[in-house]
C-alpha cells in the first residue's frame, strides 16, 4: 500500500499539491495542506506522483508500506 507523507517542516504552503491532487489534499486558512486520506488508490497514484514532483521544496513523498 502506498501512502502520501508530508514533511511539515519543509512545507512552506506553496499550494501546488492541493492544485494537483484535490482528491486527497485541501488547504487550511493559511494555505497549508490538510490530508483527507493517506492511502492512495491506483486511480490517483499518477496524480500523486505529479504532485510530489511539483512541490518546490520536496515536502511531499510517497511511501511504500513494507510487506510483512
Amino acid at each position, binding site marked *: 500500500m502506498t501512502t502520501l507523507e508530508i514533511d*511539515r*517542516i519543509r*512545507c*512552506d*504552503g506553496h499550494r501546488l499539491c492541493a492544485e494537483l491532487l484535490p482528491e486527497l489534499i485541501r488547504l*487550511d*486558512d*493559511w*494555505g*497549508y495542506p*490538510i490530508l483527507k486520506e493517506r492511502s492512495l488508490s491506483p486511480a490517483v497514484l499518477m496524480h500523486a506522483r505529479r504532485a510530489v514532483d511539483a512541490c518546490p521544496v520536496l515536502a511531499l513523498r510517497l511511501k511504500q508500506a513494507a510487506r510483512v
Partner: protein
Amino acid sequence: MRARGYALGCGVVSLLSEAECGVTATSRIMAYMAAQSARQCGPCVFGLAAIAEATSRLSARRAQANDLERIERWSAQLTGRGACRHPDGAVGLLRSALRVFDQEFAAHQHGLCLRQQARRAA
C-alpha cells in the same frame, strides 16, 4: 488512553477560583502556547497565533462576528498537522475549554461575562 482521547505529555494543574473567568484563563494559556511555538511549521505558527488572537478578543469581550466559530473550526484543523505535538497539546486544552466553558464562551462572543455578572450579583 488513546481510545478515550488522552495522550502522554507534560501537565500543569492550575486551580481557578470562583471569581476567575474560564475564557480569560484559556486565552492566557493559548497566548502562551502560541508564543512557545518552535516556528518550524505553518499550522503551528499561523494556526496557534490566530487562535490566541481570537481567544484574546473573546476574553476582552471584543470578539469579531465569527471568532467563536473560527476557533472551533481551527481547533479541529490543527490536530496531527504539526511537525511535532505542540499544536496537538494546545488544541487539546482549547477543545476541553470550549466544552467545559461553553456557556462562558457563548456569552463572551456576545460581549458578556458570566463571571463578572455573578460577581456583581453577589
